Each structure stands twice: as structure tokens, then as C-alpha cells.
């Protein structure tokens, strides 16, 4: 069987994670197939507003990966809640430029996690994005169907 590009690429990424491990604060929770992976993310150190909290980041890969970016959301269930962050909506959707116009096919699942982790690390004040309720009420299930406008480069 000839492997699809996305499967071949994900298998390689998985192998790399197995051999080299993940950076501190990032842990692979689930990668049973080549479609949905879940990472646990926490921000280390004392300087963070998320001290002691752990979040679950879900990456859903489509056949177009890695030319096309995956669906990336924070889990929102009994066990995990999305972080209170000005770029994270309460339904787990994330507004980040690399998950849109600035996606590059050389970025990996792990580099997405690292970017999201640093986005959390630079946050000074825990709050929801303006217009959270309105967005969440009408948001599509797939965050890729939302047209994001990237306004704030500080966090």
C-alpha cells in the first residue's frame, strides 16, 4: 500500500517524537491513528498566569496536511477546559496566525504545540477574547471555516 503524504509525514513526526521526546511542558497524550492527536500542554515556571494548569490540545489532520494546516482546538470536556486567554474562545477555538494565513508546510504538530505554549506563556492577564459569546454562539464546528483577523501581536 502506498502511504498518503499526510500519513507518511505524520509517521515521521511520530517517530521523531518517540526518539527525541517532546520539549518540557508538552506531552503526547494520544496518537492512535493518523487523523487525531492530542497533546497535553502546560506552561512551566513561576512567571505564568497558568501555573499548575494543564490543557489538552487536539490536532485533527486532513488529507491535505501538511500543505494545509490541521484543525487545532483546545479540548473542552469534563477533564480539560480551554485556557482563559485573549486568543482562545470558550469553545476551544484558537485565533493564531500560524493556523491560517501564516501556516507553512514545514511546520509540524510539535511546532504548533510550541507556538501555542509560547502564546500562553506570554499572556499576562487571563481573559476571554472580546466578542467571545457572540462568536461561540454562531461558530462552526471546524475552526478552519472561521475567517480570522489577526490584530494583536503581543500575546
Amino acid at each position, binding site marked *: 500500500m502506498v502511504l498518503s*503524504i499526510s500519513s507518511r*509525514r505524520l509517521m515521521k513526526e511520530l517517530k521523531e517524537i518517540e526518539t527525541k521526546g517532546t520539549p518540557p511542558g508538552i506531552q503526547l497524550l494520544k496518537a492512535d491513528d493518523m487523523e487525531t492527536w492530542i497533546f497535553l500542554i502546560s506552561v512551566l515556571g513561576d512567571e505564568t498566569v497558568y501555573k499548575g494548569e494543564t490543557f489538552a490540545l487536539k490536532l485533527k489532520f486532513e488529507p491535505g496536511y501538511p*500543505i*494545509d494546516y490541521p484543525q487545532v482546538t483546545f479540548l473542552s470536556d469534563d477533564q480539560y477546559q480551554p485556557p482563559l486567554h485573549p486568543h482562545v474562545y470558550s469553545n476551544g477555538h484558537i485565533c493564531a496566525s500560524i493556523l491560517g494565513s501564516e501556516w*507553512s*508546510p*514545514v511546520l509540524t504538530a510539535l511546532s504548533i504545540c510550541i507556538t501555542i505554549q509560547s502564546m500562553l506563556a506570554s499572556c499576562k492577564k487571563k481573559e476571554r477574547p472580546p466578542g467571545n459569546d457572540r462568536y461561540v454562539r454562531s461558530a462552526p464546528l471546524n475552526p478552519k471555516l472561521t475567517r480570522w483577523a489577526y490584530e494583536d501581536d503581543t500575546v
Partner: protein
Amino acid sequence: MSSDEDANDYFEYEDDGFEDDEMDQEAPVKKDYDVAYNVKTLSQVIDMQKKAIANIQTVLELDASTAAILLRHFGWNSEKLQEQFFNDPSKALTDAGLSPPSSPSAHTSPLLPPTASSSTPPRITRSSKRVATPATTRSRSAVSIQTSFECPVCCIEYPAASLSTKTLALGCGHRFCRDCWVEYVVGKIRTDGESAKIQCMENGCHRIVKGSLIDQLVDPDTSQRYRKLLNEAFVSDTATLRWCPHPGCENVIECSQAPPRMLNQIVPTVTCGCGNELCFGCGFAASHRPVLCKLVKLWQKKCADDSETANWLQANTKECIKCQSTIEKNGGCNHMTCKKCKWEFCWVCMGPWSEHGTAWYQCNRYDEKSGMDARDSQAKSRASLERYLHYFNRWANHELSAKLDADFYKNTEKKMEAMQQSGNLSWIEVQFAKQAVDTVIRARITLKWSYCMAFYLKRNNQTELFEDNQRDLERAVENLGYLLEQNPEPDSISKLRADITNQSAYVQKRHDILMDDTLKGYLERRWEFSVDI
């Protein structure tokens, strides 16, 4: 507002190096407030780009794709591009997403060494040093590749021998396999609608993929779409161009006399080659003369937000005289308590409830002073709403008439046929009726917008003159409309024809007066508005 800098900006619009084209028909300039413009076909727009590119190619001695990328980066301003290029060529090139000129990597170079790891790509040096020392760059790219290459996107391994055919890197040296390039570029064009700004696949690399390479990579259909997107980007990036907004029309209007800063004194209505009018200033798909673009936008927003709501509020609510909250009475007795400020009042007389004693279900105190004062303050808060509705209703009325234009023409045509038969007139002799309908319709469009104008005008003598002109045109149009509705009796046809012809000429005259005076008024700064323009 017309500082020297502004004036310079304005004149720069005219010198893009592609304005004289023998094939254009220069529209005749009729009035002070009209703008000169050309209607361009799509192929003429393509020629404009080719001409500008060829010009830069010759002056700066570059290949066509490079010249095109530079021009797009500089918003098709040839002069600015040349100035910056002569000043610092390597900066101009790197800013636009290209290599400095003397570097061999300026061209797609399949022989650059493969990038070892995708996480630490070699960055291009963004300094002029690279131009000064071409020898180092050359020696770097001359290294022959002995190892195989794994594409960092799809993870497929390519043997060294197939590198030049199966993989490629832009001038930045970020190498990927051809298949991934194709998929990436096709996705950018077909899904994202990108054209001039498709960048290297490497994270954070701003190197632009040249048009010549895109044509090599993609299928003819996608290539065609790419060209189309480039044309769209060209028109939207060029301040002196605007697409005709009418469905099915591919023409472009070129006008250098209506830059945004002029739109507080002119209304640049133009007629496209497709026969329809549009506003060059804002792209409105019809004439909105004599109203400035900005006021049209404000008005449309206000109407979208307020009209329905305002009408309903007008009919069903009153304001609390203490806190101005809008209150709807949806049943119950006349003893009202404002939910917000707890003020108790009578719905009928608006006076304080305390004076009503136990008369729960009727009010006989309508003429008491306290009740009258309350109604007075209520009247004031209603006045602005009523003022808006006054103008809106008149505006909407003409808007509605315009929707019935087709019927108006059809009915007139029937009458024209009847006149030909019963009055023994020739086809050409009954055309006066159709011309009269044309006149009515045009005048109504102007009248419609005149109510938007009046809404934003401050009350003063000039405004009174404006409203006099408006009233005269309104009356003339009503009279002509009435004449056109008459059924032509055989013995009175000639009189009706003379009446309609005369009245039609009169409407035309009143129309010209209103339009001339209003549009000249902008140039003479006669109008004062209640909003900033």
C-alpha cells in the same frame, strides 16, 4: 486640506507610464464638476501591466517576472520603484521578496545544496553585503550535491541524481520536491485566491514565487486563474483604476481626477462601456449624484440600522420623560412604571401618576400643565426621529418608484402603440413619450438622493435654496408623471404630445439646475453638513 504633499500625491497618480493609449475614447468633459475618465477593456488592462513591466525591464535591466514582482510590491508606482531601486537595489529586491541582482540565486536554481533540516533553514542575508561579495555566494551554490534529499514537507527521499528535475528551491535556497510545490501553489491559487504574494513554503520566508515558475508548475486552467487573480490585484492596487461593478461587465474605468482626498468636493459619476453608470469614488453601481460618497455610505448604514426599528418605535412606543428609556405598552392599564428609573406616569397624558388618584383605567387630565410639559419633552426626543423619517420616507418613495421603472416603460409603450394607431402618428413621432419617461426616471434618482443630502445639510439660507430647487424639480416631475398617465384620446393627442414635450424639457431644465447648483456648491464650499465630510 490641500497641503503641498497632497498635491504631489495627486499628480503621482497620473504618471504611471501607461495612460496614453490610442484605443481609449476620452469621455468629453462637460462640467467643472465632471471627471475625465477612460473605459478600458480587460485586454487593455493586461496591456497596461505589460507596458509597465516592459518599461521597468528596460530601465532596470531585469527579467519580466522580477520586474512584475517589484512593480506589485511598489503598488505599480514606477517612479517610486525606480527611485528606491537606484537608491539601494538590493534593499528594493529583498523588500519585494527577491534576491539581490548579482547573486546567481536570483534565478530558480536547482543546484543549491539541500537544506539539512527544516527546523533550522539557512536564512538569506538581508543586507547589501551580499551584492558586494558575489564570489562567496557563487562558491556556495557551486558545491556539488552528493547526498540524497528528503523533502521536508512530504518526507519522500530523492536520490542525488534526480535533484535537478524532481526538486527545486527559490533564490532563498529552501528546497522542496516539485510535487509538494505544485500542490502548495495550486492550493494557494485555487483555494486561497492568492496571486502576487505567494511566498516560499518555508516558515517565515517571504520569498515570492515568480509568475514564470508558477506557469511551469501548474496546469493551464490554474495558470489562467492565476493570471485572472493577478489582473484583479493589479486593478485593486492601482488607485486610478476601478472595475465596473455591473454584473457580466469586465471593463475597468481609469480616472486620475478622483483620488480619495478629492471626494469631499466631487461626485465622480462615470458611464461604463456597458452603458451603466457607476461612482468611481466608491464603486456604487449607479449614480448617487448630487450626494458625496461619504454621505451615501452614512445614509445607507443609517437606513439599514434604523429605518425598520425607527418606524416601529414611532408607532408603538413612548419615552419615559425621566430617563428617556423607550417604553412599549403591551397591555394592562395606563398606570406605567418605568422599569429603569421606577418613574410612575400615565400612558395617556404622560403626566405623573401621583396626580391621578384612583382613576386607574381612564385619564381625564390630558390638559393639566404637568402632563403637557411631559408631552413637550417627549415631543423633543421624537423630533429627531421624525426628522429622519421625513427624509427617509421621501427617499424610500423614489427608491420604490425606481423599482417600478419596468412597468412604467411597458405602460408607456402600450400608449405609444395606441397613439400610432388612433392618432395616425409614425413610430418616430411617438418617441417623445419614451424620452419623457427617461427624463422622469433620471430626475427621480436625483430627487431620491437629494433627500439624503437634505438630511445631512445644516439649516441655513443655502439649504433653503437647495430645498427650493428640490421642490421645483419634485413638482415638475409630478406634473410630467401625471401627463404620462393620461390616456391619449384621438382628438387630444397633439395637445398631449405638446404638453409632454414641454413639461419634459422643463423637468430636464429643473434637473440640470439642481444638479449644477449642488455640485458647484461643493467646489464653492457653499454646503455645511451636520457630519464631517
